[in-house]
């Protein structure tokens, strides 16, 4: 049964499979038509196949079940055969039955499937029949179409074959080209790279060489020192300078070579660029439509074109890279070149004259080549820097908005400056007024109002330009932060403002104020201005012309000065130190001659006159020659020479007046002299000080010649000061002729020689027939009655009712024959107390009223006269007031030497001479003279030209050594200043009155008599004062005279 089942299933399956297989070869091709029919057919076949496969699956599962059941049955049969227990058999039997039932069920199912399969097979047959029919209908049509298509395809095939053959040919060509391009690219890359590598290596070597050279130069230059000798310059600086110049020449060639390379590269780049552009345009034209499908050939052509473009681009890039590399290297070379140029400029001022003349030799071709190269280099630098700045500016500003922001900031700054200027300018008048006030509060300017006014005027005219200058400087400083080259403009501004300010200052000092107001550069009250202008126009015409000439000259000189400074500096800055900059400097300074010519020709009359005044005494012929020839064509040169003469004498005079003859110069000179000698003789003088100060060992007869006493004339010891005596004699002559104001007051410190001068005058006037009365006032006569009595005695007038009064006495004196009255120590007619002026006032009135009839010479103490004149001016009472000036150095020296010559002693200055080894006798003599001059200069300065002080200290300088008088430096006793003020008032009273007793001092200083007596005794004990007569009047000693006066002057106690 089982076998049967199996066979049936297999048969069904086989049948189904065959059916399908039979149908398959005859399946109509979809291309041949009857699409719908075929579609259905296919669907049916598919469905059938599906059903068959399902059936197969079911059959397999059934077969599997059947095998299982078969196996179970076999097992059961075995069990049965093994006679198993009944129960098990029953169960198994039951199970067997179930299986048999189930098997039967499956059998039935298989039958059903067989039926179904049969139906399907029928349906399949039907479908196949339909399909065959449809296939027969379409076959003819398909064959026709197929034939047409085959013919067309054959034709196309032929054409395609032809095209393929052509394309193969072109493709071969393209491949060849492609290979060629590839080879070219490889070659290009490798060649260029090799070249680049070689070049880079060479450049690196060059850079290394330059760096080493730079280090070498820097090391040598850093070894420079200030103050090279000419030999050192030749040995040290010149070789370095020469090497620098040579190196720069070598570098110049290198730079030229690089520049030529750049030109070649530039040409190559231009070609490559043009080729690249052509290729790109070609490609654009040929393959503009990217969406269009391309044939293989076209694709290949496009690829080839792209490749060619790449090659051109690559070539261009390589050239650019080389160019950039070259630029970098050139930049390094240029830096080195700049270094060389800087160092050349730095070394140029310190090279030797030989090297300088060699380098600046205008006949040398190399120098000119260097110079022109410097010009080229300078211009290049300017251009490069300008371009660089634009690039930098672009980088800084970056965008339009940044530029706008920068401009806004600049505008804001300008506005700020403008507002600041406007604000400040409003305060300018106040500031100048404030400064003027401040100036006048200073003693120095208060006593020099002209100077103070000039200074304030200068301030007024320069303050505005200075403010403007500051504002401009501020703005340009801001711009220069972005564009440093603007600094050059600052030079221009500097020059312009410098010119303006200097000219304004000159105008202030030269032009009168009203004239400047007229010009609009000074502020003066208008009415006053017009008034002055009208009144002064004619009078000041010449002065104004002279002022104009001065201003014109100043303008010329300042312009030249500015040009001479800025132009050569600018040229040297741009082109460096070379024969061209040197020539430019020479050319600029050559204009000095032209300038000199201009100025001198303008001032020739004035210069000729000055020269005539100065040189007439020495060179009368020369002076006349200048005046006569000044208007000739060569007159300017004559005047030029004369100008040098004038300038020389003016400078000499100026130095003498303001330097050599100044107190400070003398003090410094003497201080140095004293210190030098003190340092040398410090050790030697130890222990001898006291003996020298006292001068005990000096011979008495020698000391007597230097006692502080007036000379009895005639005497060989008298040294006359012509200036003083001539002034007196001249006034006497005038009085003799005109009988007017025959009165002279001689004013001087005590010990200056007033009495000796009066004696000298008396001696001189003895030649006249006039009666001479020479009186020395020894007592204080400060009461009117006392003075009237004294005058009566002086003129030998009897006391009467008439002569008891002042007017009566004056009348009586007028009736007397003319006589010469010489009164010494007239300060005794005065005492500084209430009513103390009466006597002096009466005397001065008397002298003033009678000096037409009689000739008076009155001597006063300087401090008394200064005081009474400060209270009320009294100089006008006299025809002349002769101030006794300090004795000059030569006069003092002559006086002392004359007195020394009277004795057998010749003081030696050998102790003061600074030790010099190896000096011969001539040198020694010169040293002695120099030392003695130095000593007397010191003595004169310390004594203040006071004869008694000088002689006192002269004696203190001397010491006796084996009967030989040796001069050493005198010590200056110090004044003990820490005294009570009243003590100083005592000294003030004594100094102011010449001599005073204790009682008189008490009246003058409003102090107790006892205190004054005690103070005077103390001063006498300390050698500050000395009693001078029987009235126990005290006077200052020469020893402390200067120290006391200095302290009193510093304390404002004493007027002088």
């Amino acid at each position, binding site marked *: 049964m089982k076998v049967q089942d199996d066979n049936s299933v297999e048969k069904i399956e086989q049948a189904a499979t065959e059916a399908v297989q039979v149908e398959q070869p005859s399946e109509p091709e979809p291309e041949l038509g009857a699409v719908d029919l075929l579609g259905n057919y296919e669907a049916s076949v598919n469905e059938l196949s599906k059903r068959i496969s399902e059936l197969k699956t079911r059959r397999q599962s059934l077969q599997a079940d059947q095998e299982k059941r078969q196996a179970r049955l076999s097992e059961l049969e075995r069990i049965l055969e093994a006679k198993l227990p009944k129960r098990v058999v029953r169960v198994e039997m039951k199970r067997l039955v179930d299986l048999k039932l189930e098997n039967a069920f499956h059998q039935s199912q298989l039958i059903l499937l067989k039926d179904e399969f049969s139906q399907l097979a029928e349906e399949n047959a039907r479908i196949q029949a339909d399909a065959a029919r449809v296939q027969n209908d379409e076959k003819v049509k398909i064959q026709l179409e197929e034939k047409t298509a085959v013919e067309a395809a054959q034709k196309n095939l032929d054409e395609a074959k032809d095209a393929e053959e052509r394309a193969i040919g072109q493709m071969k060509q393209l491949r060849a080209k492609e290979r060629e391009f590839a080879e070219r690219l490889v070659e290009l890359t490798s060649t260029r790279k090799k070249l680049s590598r070689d070049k880079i290596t060479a450049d690196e070597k060059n850079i290394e060489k330059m760096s080493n050279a730079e280090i070498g130069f820097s090391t040598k230059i850093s070894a420079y020192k200030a103050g090279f000798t000419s030999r050192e310059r030749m040995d040290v600086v010149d070789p370095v300078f020469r090497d620098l110049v040579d190196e720069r020449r070598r570098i110049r060639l290198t730079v030229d070579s690089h520049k030529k390379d750049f030109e070649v590269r530039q040409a190559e780049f231009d070609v490559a660029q043009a080729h690249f552009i052509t290729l790109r345009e070609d490609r654009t034209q040929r393959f503009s439509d990217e969406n269009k499908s391309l044939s293989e050939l076209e694709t290949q052509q496009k690829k080839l074109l792209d490749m060619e473009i790449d090659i051109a681009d690559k070539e261009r890039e390589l050239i650019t890279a080389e160019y950039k590399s070259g630029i970098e290297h050139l930049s390094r070379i240029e830096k080195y070149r700049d270094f060389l140029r800087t160092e050349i400029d730095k070394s140029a001022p310190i090279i030797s004259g030989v090297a300088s003349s060699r380098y600046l030799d205008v006949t040398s071709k190399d120098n000119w080549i260097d110079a022109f190269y410097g010009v080229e280099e300078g211009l290049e630098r300017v251009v490069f820097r300008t371009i660089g700045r634009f690039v930098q500016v672009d980088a800084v500003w970056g965008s339009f908005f940044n530029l706008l922001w920068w401009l806004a900031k600049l505008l804001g700054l300008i506005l700020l400056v403008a507002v600041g200027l406007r604000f400040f300018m409003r305060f300018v008048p106040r500031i100048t007024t404030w400064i003027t006030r401040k100036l006048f509060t200073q003693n120095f300017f208060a006593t020099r109002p002209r100077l103070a006014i000039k200074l304030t005027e200068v301030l007024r005219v320069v303050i505005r330009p200075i403010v403007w200058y500051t504002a401009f400087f501020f703005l340009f400083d801001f711009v220069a932060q972005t564009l440093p080259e603007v600094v050059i403009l600052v030079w221009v501004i500097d020059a312009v403002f410098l010119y303006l300010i200097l000219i304004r200052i000159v105008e202030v000092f030269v032009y009168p104020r009203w004239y400047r107001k007229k010009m609009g550069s000074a502020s003066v009250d208008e009415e006053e201005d017009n008034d002055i202008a009208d009144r002064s126009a004619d009078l000041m015409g010449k002065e104004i012309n002279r002022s104009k000439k001065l201003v014109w000259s100043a303008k010329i000189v300042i312009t030249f000065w500015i040009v001479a400074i800025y132009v050569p500096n600018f040229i040297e800055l741009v082109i460096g130190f070379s024969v061209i900059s040197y020539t430019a400097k020479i050319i600029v300074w050559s204009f000095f001659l032209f300038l000199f010519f201009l100025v001198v020709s303008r001032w020739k009359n004035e210069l000729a006159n000055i020269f005539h005044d100065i040189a007439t005494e020495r060179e009368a012929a020369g002076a006349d020659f200048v005046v006569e020839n000044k208007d000739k064509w060569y007159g300017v040169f004559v005047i030029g020479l004369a100008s040098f003469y004038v300038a020389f004498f003016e400078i000499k005079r100026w130095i003498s007046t303001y330097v050599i003859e100044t107190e400070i110069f003398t003090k410094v000179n003497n201080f140095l002299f004293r210190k030098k000698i003190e340092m040398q003789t410090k050790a030697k003088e130890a222990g001898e000080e006291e003996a020298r100060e006292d001068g005990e060992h000096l011979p008495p007869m020698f000391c007597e010649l230097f006692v502080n006493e007036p000379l009895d004339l005639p005497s060989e010891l008298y040294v006359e000061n012509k200036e003083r005596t001539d002034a007196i004699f001249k006034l006497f002559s005038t009085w003799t002729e005109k009988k007017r104001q025959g009165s002279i007051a001689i004013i001087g410190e005590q010990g200056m020689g007033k009495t000796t001068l009066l004696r000298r005058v008396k001696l001189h006037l003895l030649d006249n027939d006039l009666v001479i009365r020479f009186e020395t006032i020894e007592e204080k006569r400060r009461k009117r009655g006392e003075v009237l009595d004294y005058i009566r005695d002086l003129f030998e007038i009897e006391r009467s009712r008439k002569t008891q009064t002042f007017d009566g006495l004056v009348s009586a004196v007028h009736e007397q024959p003319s006589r010469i009255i010489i009164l010494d120590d007239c300060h005794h007619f005065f005492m500084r*107390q209430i009513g103390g002026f009466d006597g002096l006032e009466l005397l001065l009135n008397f002298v003033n009223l009678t000096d037409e009839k009689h000739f008076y010479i009155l001597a006063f103490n300087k401090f008394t006269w200064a005081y009474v004149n*400060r209270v009320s001016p009294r100089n006008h009472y006299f025809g002349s007031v002769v101030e006794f000036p300090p004795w000059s150095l030569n006069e003092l020296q002559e006086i002392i030497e004359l007195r020394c010559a009277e004795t057998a002693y010749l003081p030696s200055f050998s102790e003061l001479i600074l030790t010099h080894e190896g000096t011969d006798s001539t040198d020694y003599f010169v040293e002695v003279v120099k030392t003695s001059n130095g000593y007397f200069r010191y003595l004169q300065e310390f004594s203040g030209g006071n004869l008694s002080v000088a002689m006192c200290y002269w004696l203190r300088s001397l010491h006796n050594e084996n009967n030989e008088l040796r001069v050493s430096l005198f010590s200056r006793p110090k004044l003990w200043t820490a005294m009570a003020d009243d003590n100083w008032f005592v000294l003030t009273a004594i100094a102011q009155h010449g001599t005073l007793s204790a009682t008189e001092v008490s009246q003058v200083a409003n102090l107790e008599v006892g205190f004054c007596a005690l103070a005077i005794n103390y001063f006498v004990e300390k050698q500050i004062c000395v009693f001078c007569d029987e009235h126990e009047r005290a006077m200052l000693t020469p020893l402390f005279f200067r120290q006391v006066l200095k302290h009193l002057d510093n304390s404002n106690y004493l007027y002088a």
Partner: protein
Amino acid sequence: MIDFSINMLPIIAQAETDQFAKILEIINVAKLSQAAFIIFMAWVLNKFLASAFDKFAEGNASLRLLLKKVASFTRLAIFVSAAVLVVQTMFEGQDEALLGIGATLGIGIGFALKDTLSSLMSGVLILIDQPFQVGDRVQFGDTYGEVTEIGLRSVRIVTLDDNEVSIPNNKFLTDVVASANSGALNMMVVMKFYISVTEDFELAKRIVYEACITSKYVFLSKPVTMHVRDQVTDVAYATVIICKAYVIDTRYESAFQTDVTERVKRAFRKNNISHPYAREFSVRSSKWDDQSEIIEDPKKEIAE
């Protein structure tokens, strides 16, 4: 909110220890010694310079005021420099600490010594602005005298009674101060003399004038001016002679007035010029027997 639990205590203790260590680092013996040395040197230098300036100025009246001004500035400069050096020494390398402690001290001291600091700043302003200078005679409120010192805290004025008055500097910024000589050594002194209206005022005026111009204290580089006017005083109808003269040195102001007054009174008595008192009185002195100061009238001579 910080949790100050028991676990935090070691951290806080550590922080305090660090802070303490920092303070110890700043304030150590070496630095304190250096600071003390700097302060001592500043003090010595100040004393030395002040003494030197005084000594030098003593014998030179014209330079006295200038040297006193220089001394004031020098003192200020020395103490400011010393303060800067001390701070630098103490806080060397401790910028944060310097800032912190400086700020703390600044605020603390600023509040505590507000007036003192105000005076200090005022002192600097006085030195710069110079409403008055050392040596000037100033009137400030009821105080009149010579300015002897412009210090960092106060201005010292020695009155005519020789009392030294210290006025805080900040007072001068708000109140009115009058300087009689404003930097000059000399100053004007006004003296008034009253005489009876019936007396010879011309003679009296001449006596006063001569007493002024012959005084040892008068400064004659500036004019001596005289004014005469009649005035109703509390006791009588009087003639007032006013003399305006300059004294050579401000320190002699009182002495000048005394000197002139003494001599004028003596001369008035000798010349029988009486004061405008309603009641007669007589005071005699042995000195008046001296006839030296009796004015002789030229007109009287003519009359004789």
